[in-house]
C-alpha cells in the first residue's frame, strides 16, 4: 500500500481537468486495444490514478475494469491490476492512519464514495459471482487482491453481498478454502474476509461451520501458540465468536464436536511469568468470551447445562479457577475470568460444588469464595472487579440450596467459627460498612442466599448481632431496619430494602418478625405518604413493595397488623391510589429495565448500581398481586379463601381415590402371588394324584389277580358271599360320597349368598358413584377420574388374566380327574370310579356355574368400569375369586383325601378278601407287596395243592 501513499500525500485540491481526460483516454485503450500488453499498461495506469482520482476512475472506468475481469481471464497480471484498482475505489479505510489532517467531512466523503461504488458494482449480482470464480485462481496476484476486494465489498454492503454469496453455488464453501491456503497472507486476509462474511448471518455461519471451520480455526490457534500467538490468533478467535454467538445450532455442533475440550489448554497460563503482552491480554479476553458464549444465561438451559458439564469434565473450569487464584494476572483478565467462572457454574450443582471447594493457595488456605468476597467489600478494588465478584457469588447461589445453606450457616450462632474469616462475616461487614457500594453488594449477595429458599429465610431470623459493648444483641433483621431509618445513602437503602423484600417475601414468619417491631410500619407509611424529591422515589416505591408484601404474606398472627388492619392503614394514611402509584415507581425507574435484561450486574458507573436482576423478577411477580390485594375488600378475600378451601377439598378427594387405587394395586399384587403359589400347589397335587392313581392301578391289578384266582378256585356260593360283602362296602362308600356332595352343595349355597351380597354391594357402590359424579362437576376432578378409570381398566385386564389362569387351573384339575376316571375300568372299581366321576362332574358343573356367576359379575364390573366406584367392586370381585380359588384348592385337597380313603378302603377290602380266601383255605400272603410274590406264591400254592 506504500505505493499509493505517495500519490495521495498532501493532496487536498480537487480533480485536475487533465486527470479526467487522461482517465478517459486510458479507458478507451482498455476498451478498444486489441493488444493485451496495451490493455495491461492502461489498467496499470488506471490503478496508479485510482487513489488520487478515485471519483473519476470510479465513474468512468468501473465498467471497463469489470469487462477485463470477464474477458482477460488468462492473464493474471492484468486481472491483478484490475482487482487492485477496484479495491482502491471501493475501500474506505486505507487512509485513516496516514493522514491526520483529514477531517471528518473528508472521511465521510470517502465513505460515501465507497458506498456509491459498491452499490454500482453489486447492482449486477453476477459481478460478485465473478469475483468468487476469480478466487479459484491460484495465482497470488489474482487471489490476494480478490480476497481484499470482496472483504471491502462486504464491509460496505454486508447484507446484500452476503445474500448474493449465499445463493451462488458453493460460494461459501469456496471462501472456506482460503483457510487452507499455504500462503499466510492469503490465509490471514481470508480470515478477515470470513469475519465480514459471517457477521450477523446465521445461515452463512452454519455453512462455514459445516465446512469444518471449527477444526481449522482451532488448529491455526494451536499452531500459532494459542494465547501467545499474534494477531492471527485474535482474528481466528473473532471469527469463532462470530460463528457461535447467538447461534444455538453451531453451539451444539461445537459441543458435539468435542471442541470444548480443545479450549482447555488455552487457559494453562496460571503462574508462569512469561509476561502479559497487550496481544496476549486481547487473545485471552476473546478466549474467555468464547467460553462465555457457550454457557451464556441467554442460551437454552439444556444447552448451557451440557456445556457446563463438559467444561467440568475436561478440566476447563478447574483451569479457570487456577487463573482466578493466581498472582500477577492483569486486572481486566482477572475480572473477565471471574465473569466466565460465574457463567460456567451458574445453576450447575456439580460445578457449584466444585467452586465451593476451591481454595486460594494462601497460608492457611482460604476458600476462594471468601477471598473473592473480600474484594467485593473492599473499596480499593476496581468497580468492575467488585461487580464480577458479586456476579460470581450470585451464580454460585443460583438454584443452589446447598450453597445457600452453607453461606447462611456461617452466620448462625451454633456454627460460627471464630478463628477464620467467613463469608457471613464479610457480608455482615459489608452490610454495615460506611461504603454504600459495599452495603449494596452485601445486601444483594445476602438476598441471593435467600432466593426461593424458605428454610434459609427462617434461619436468618435467628442471627443476632453484637452492636456495641454492654448493649444487648440485636437481630440482623432489626439492624437492617435500623440502618434504613437512619437515612443513609440511597444506594444503601435501596440495597437493604431489596434484601428485606426478598427476605420476607413468601415467608409469613419473617413478615411477623418484621411487623413485630413497632417502629417499622409507621416508618414505611411515613416514607410512602411523604412528598419527596425525585431521587427518593425509588426508595418510596420499595417501601410500598415491602408494605405490600407484609399484607400479602400476612398470616394474621399479630392482632395490630392483620391484613385488614394494614389495608385500612393504607386507605387512611396513604390512600389506595397513592400507594399503587408509589409502588409503580419501581418499574418506571430508568434503570429498571436495563437490570431486567440479563443476570450479570453491569453498570455504567457506581452510582447506577441500584437494581439487581433477580429482584426485578420479584417485582414483576409481586406488583400485580399487591395492587390487587390492596384493592380487594375483605369479603372478596373471604370468597377467595372459600374457593381455595373447596379446591383443597377436591384435592383431598382425588388423593383419597389415589390411595384407594394404590391399595388395590397392592391387593392385586398379593392375589397374583397367591395364584402363583396355588398353581404350584395344584401341580404338586397333580403329581400326588398321578402317583396315587398308579398305586390304585397296582392294587386293582392285584385285586384282579386275586379275583381271577377266586373265580378259578372257589365255589359260586362263596363268590356271591364275597360279592355281597363288596356291595356292602360300596354302599358305605356311596353314602360317604353323598355326604361329600352335600357338603359341597352347602358350600355352593354359601358362595351364592356371598355372591348376592357382593351384588348388593356393587349396587350400592353404583348408586354412590352416581351421587358422587352428580355432586362433583369440577373439570379437574373429571380429569382425575379419567386417569383413575384407565387404571381400573388396566386392573380389569389383570383380573381377566387371573381369570384365564384360574380357568387353566380348573381345566388341569378336570383333566386330572377325568384321567383318573377313565383309567379305572375295573369291574369292581367301576362303580366307585363312576361315583368319583359323577362327583367330579358335579364339581365341574358347580365350577361352571361359579364361572357363570363370575362372568356375570365381571360383566357388571365392566359396566361399572366407567364409574369410579368400580374400583372398589373390582377388589371385591377379586376377593371372591380368591375365595373361589381357595375353595377349589380345598376341593382338590378333599379329592385327594377321598382318593386316600378309597385306597384305604381298597386295602381293607383286599384284606377282607384275603381273609375270606384264607377262610376258604387259600394260603394268602399278608404282605402288601403282593406283586413280586404272586408268582412264587402261586407256585407254592400249586405245590401245596399237589401235595394235598
Amino acid at each position, binding site marked *: 500500500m506504500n505505493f499509493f501513499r505517495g500519490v495521495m500525500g498532501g493532496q487536498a485540491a480537487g480533480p485536475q481537468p487533465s486527470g479526467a481526460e487522461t482517465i478517459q483516454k486510458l479507458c478507451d485503450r482498455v476498451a478498444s486495444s486489441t493488444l493485451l500488453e496495451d490493455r495491461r499498461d492502461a489498467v496499470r495506469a488506471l490503478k496508479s490514478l485510482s487513489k488520487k482520482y478515485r471519483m473519476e476512475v470510479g465513474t468512468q472506468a468501473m465498467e471497463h475494469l469489470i469487462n477485463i475481469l470477464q474477458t482477460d481471464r488468462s492473464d493474471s497480471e492484468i486481472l491483478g491490476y484490475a482487482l487492485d484498482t477496484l479495491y482502491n475505489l471501493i475501500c474506505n479505510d486505507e487512509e485513516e492512519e496516514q493522514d491526520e489532517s483529514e477531517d471528518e467531512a473528508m472521511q465521510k466523503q470517502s465513505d460515501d464514495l465507497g458506498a456509491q461504488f459498491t452499490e454500482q458494482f453489486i447492482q449486477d449480482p453476477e459481478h460478485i459471482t465473478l469475483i468468487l470464480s476469480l478466487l479459484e485462481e491460484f495465482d497470488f496476484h489474482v487471489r490476494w487482491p480478490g480476497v481484499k476486494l470482496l472483504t471491502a465489498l462486504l464491509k460496505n454492503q454486508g447484507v446484500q453481498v452476503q445474500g448474493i454469496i*449465499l445463493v451462488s*453455488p458453493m460460494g461459501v*464453501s469456496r471462501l472456506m478454502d482460503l483457510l487452507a491456503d499455504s500462503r499466510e497472507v492469503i490465509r490471514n486476509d481470508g480470515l478477515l474476509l470470513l469475519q465480514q462474511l459471517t457477521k450477523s448471518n*446465521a445461515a452463512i455461519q452454519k*455453512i462455514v461451520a*459445516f465446512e469444518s471451520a471449527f477444526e481449522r480455526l482451532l488448529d491455526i490457534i494451536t499452531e500459532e501458540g494459542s494465547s501467545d500467538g499474534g494477531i492471527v490468533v485474535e482474528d481466528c478467535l473473532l471469527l469463532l465468536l462470530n460463528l457461535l454467538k447467538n447461534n444455538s*445450532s453451531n453451539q*451444539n*455442533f461445537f459441543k*458435539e464436536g468435542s471442541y470444548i475440550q480443545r479450549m482447555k489448554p488455552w487457559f494453562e497460563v496460571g503462574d508462569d511469568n512469561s509476561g502479559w503482552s497487550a496481544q496476549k491480554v486481547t487473545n485471552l479476553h476473546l478466549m474467555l468470551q468464547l467460553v462465555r458464549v457457550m454457557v451464556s444465561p441467554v442460551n437454552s438451559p439444556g444447552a448451557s447445562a451440557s456445556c457446563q458439564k463438559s467444561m467440568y469434565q475436561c478440566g476447563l473450569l478447574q483451569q479457570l479457577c487456577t487463573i482466578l487464584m493466581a498472582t500477577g494476572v492483569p486486572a481486566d483478565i482477572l475480572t473477565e475470568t471471574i465473569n466466565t467462572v460465574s457463567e460456567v457454574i451458574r445453576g450447575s450443582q456439580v460445578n457449584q460444588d466444585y467452586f465451593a471447594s476451591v481454595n486460594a493457595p494462601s497460608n492457611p488456605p482460604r476458600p476462594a469464595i471468601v477471598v473473592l468476597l473480600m474484594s467485593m467489600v473492599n473499596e480499593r478494588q476496581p468497580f468492575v472487579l467488585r461487580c464480577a465478584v458479586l456476579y460470581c457469588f450470585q451464580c454460585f447461589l443460583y438454584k443452589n440450596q446447598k450453597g445457600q445453606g452453607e453461606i447462611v450457616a456461617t452466620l448462625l450462632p451454633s456454627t460460627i467459627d471464630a478463628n477464620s474469616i467467613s463469608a457471613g462475616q464479610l457480608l455482615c461487614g459489608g452490610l454495615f460498612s460506611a461504603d454504600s457500594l459495599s452495603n449494596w453488594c452485601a445486601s444483594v449477595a445476602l438476598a441471593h442466599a435467600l432466593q426461593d429458599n424458605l428454610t434459609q429465610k427462617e434461619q436468618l431470623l435467628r442471627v443476632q448481632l453484637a452492636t456495641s459493648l454492654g448493649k444487648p444483641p440485636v437481630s440482623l433483621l432489626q439492624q437492617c431496619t435500623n440502618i434504613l431509618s437512619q437515612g443513609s445513602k440511597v444506594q444503601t437503602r435501596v440495597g437493604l430494602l431489596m434484601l428485606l423484600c426478598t427476605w420476607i417475601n413468601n415467608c409469613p414468619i419473617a413478615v411477623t418478625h418484621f411487623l413485630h417491631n413497632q417502629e417499622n410500619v409507621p416508618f414505611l407509611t411515613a416514607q410512602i405518604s411523604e412528598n419527596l424529591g425525585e431521587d427518593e422515589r425509588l426508595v418510596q416505591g420499595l417501601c410500598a413493595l415491602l408494605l405490600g408484601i407484609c399484607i400479602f404474606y400476612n398470616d394474621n398472627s399479630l392482632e395490630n397488623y392483620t391484613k385488614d388492619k394494614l389495608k385500612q392503614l393504607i386507605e387512611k394514611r396513604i390512600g389506595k391510589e397513592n400507594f399503587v402509584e408509589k409502588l409503580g415507581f419501581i418499574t418506571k425507574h430508568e434503570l429498571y429495565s436495563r437490570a431486567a435484561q440479563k443476570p450479570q450486574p453491569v453498570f455504567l458507573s457506581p452510582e447506577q448500581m441500584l437494581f439487581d436482576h433477580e429482584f426485578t423478577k420479584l417485582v414483576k411477580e409481586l406488583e400485580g398481586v399487591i395492587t390487587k390485594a390492596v384493592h380487594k375488600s375483605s369479603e372478596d378475600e373471604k370468597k377467595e379463601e372459600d374457593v381455595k378451601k373447596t379446591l383443597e377439598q377436591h384435592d383431598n378427594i382425588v388423593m383419597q381415590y389415589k390411595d384407594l387405587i394404590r391399595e388395590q394395586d397392592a391387593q392385586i399384587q398379593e392375589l397374583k402371588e397367591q395364584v402363583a403359589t396355588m398353581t404350584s400347589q395344584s401341580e404338586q397335587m397333580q403329581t400326588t394324584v398321578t402317583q396315587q392313581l398308579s398305586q390304585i392301578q397296582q392294587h386293582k391289578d392285584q385285586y384282579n389277580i386275586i379275583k381271577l384266582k377266586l373265580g378259578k378256585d372257589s365255589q359260586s356260593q362263596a363268590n356271591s358271599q364275597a360279592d355281597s360283602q363288596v356291595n356292602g362296602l360300596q354302599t358305605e362308600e356311596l353314602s360317604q360320597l353323598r355326604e361329600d356332595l352335600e357338603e359341597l352343595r352347602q358350600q355352593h349355597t354359601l358362595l351364592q349368598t356371598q355372591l348376592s351380597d357382593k351384588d348388593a354391594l356393587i349396587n350400592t357402590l353404583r348408586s354412590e358413584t352416581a351421587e358422587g359424579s352428580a355432586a362433583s362437576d369440577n373439570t379437574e376432578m373429571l380429569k382425575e377420574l379419567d386417569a383413575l378409570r384407565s387404571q381400573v381398566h388396566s386392573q380389569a385386564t389383570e383380573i381377566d388374566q387371573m381369570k384365564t389362569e384360574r380357568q387353566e387351573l380348573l381345566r388341569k384339575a378336570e383333566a386330572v380327574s377325568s384321567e383318573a376316571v377313565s383309567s379305572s375300568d375295573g369291574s369292581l372299581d367301576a362303580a366307585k370310579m363312576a361315583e368319583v366321576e359323577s362327583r367330579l362332574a358335579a364339581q365341574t358343573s358347580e365350577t361352571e356355574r361359579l364361572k357363570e356367576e363370575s362372568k356375570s359379575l365381571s360383566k357388571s364390573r365392566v359396566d361399572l368400569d366407567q364409574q369410579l366406584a368400580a374400583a372398589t367392586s373390582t377388589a371385591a370381585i377379586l376377593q371372591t375369586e380368591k375365595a373361589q380359588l381357595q375353595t377349589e384348592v380345598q376341593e382338590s385337597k378333599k379329592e385327594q383325601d377321598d382318593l386316600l380313603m378309597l385306597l384305604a378302603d381298597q386295602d381293607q377290602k383286599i384284606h377282607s378278601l384275603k381273609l375270606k380266601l384264607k377262610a376258604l383255605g387259600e394260603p394268602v400272603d399278608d404282605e402288601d407287596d403282593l406283586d413280586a410274590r404272586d408268582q412264587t406264591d402261586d407256585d407254592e400254592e400249586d405245590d401245596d395243592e399237589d401235595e394235598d
Partner: protein
Amino acid sequence: MAYAYLFKYIIIGDTGVGKSCLLLQFTDKRFQPVHDLTIGVEFGARMITIDGKQIKLQIWDTAGQESFRSITRSYYRGAAGALLVYDITRRDTFNHLTTWLEDARQHSNSNMVIMLIGNKSDLESRREVKKEEGEAFAREHGLIFMETSAKTASNVEEAFINTAKEIYEKIQEGVFDINNEANGIKIGPQHPTTNSTLSGNQGGQQAGGGCC
C-alpha cells in the same frame, strides 16, 4: 467420546414431511407434535455402533421451502449420507422426489448414500402413497428405502443406522476416500483398527444424544 468414524448426514425433502421430527426422535428419543418451522439448517448429533465400532453421526436438518433451497445446496458436497424424506399421506411430497434427487445428485459427491424415507407410517388410514410405490422409486434410482414414523419411532433408528452401514461398507470396499474430509467422513482420533480389538463387548447402539 472417541469415535472410529464420523459421518456427516443431511436430511432433505419437502417442508412438513417430518424431517425435524425424525432428527429429534433419533437424537433425543422424543416426538414433538408441534414443531417450529426449521429456519435454514439445524444441527444434531448422536453416537451409534456398527460392527463393534463407535460411529459419530453429525446431522444437518434442512428447511424444505424453496427459498432455502440454495442454502441447503451448500450442504450436499460435504455430506456422506442423505435422508430424502416424503410424507406417505401427501402424494405431492412423493411427486417432488425427482426434483430433490436431481438437486442432490447434482451438488453432492457421487458416492453419497441416499436413503429414501416414507415418513408418518403411523397414519395408515390417511395413506396416499403405497409402500410398493416407494420401493419401486427407490429401486429405479438405486436408493435404500424404508417407511418410518417419527411419532412412534418405528424404523427411525434403522433408517439412520442402515444408512451408516451402507457408508461403512463403501469405506470397507475402498469406494470412499476417507482422507478427504470434504466427503463427509472423518477418521476418529482413535484409529479404527486398534479400536476393533477393544470393541468386542460393545453390543447395542449407544443411546441418547449429548454424549461426549
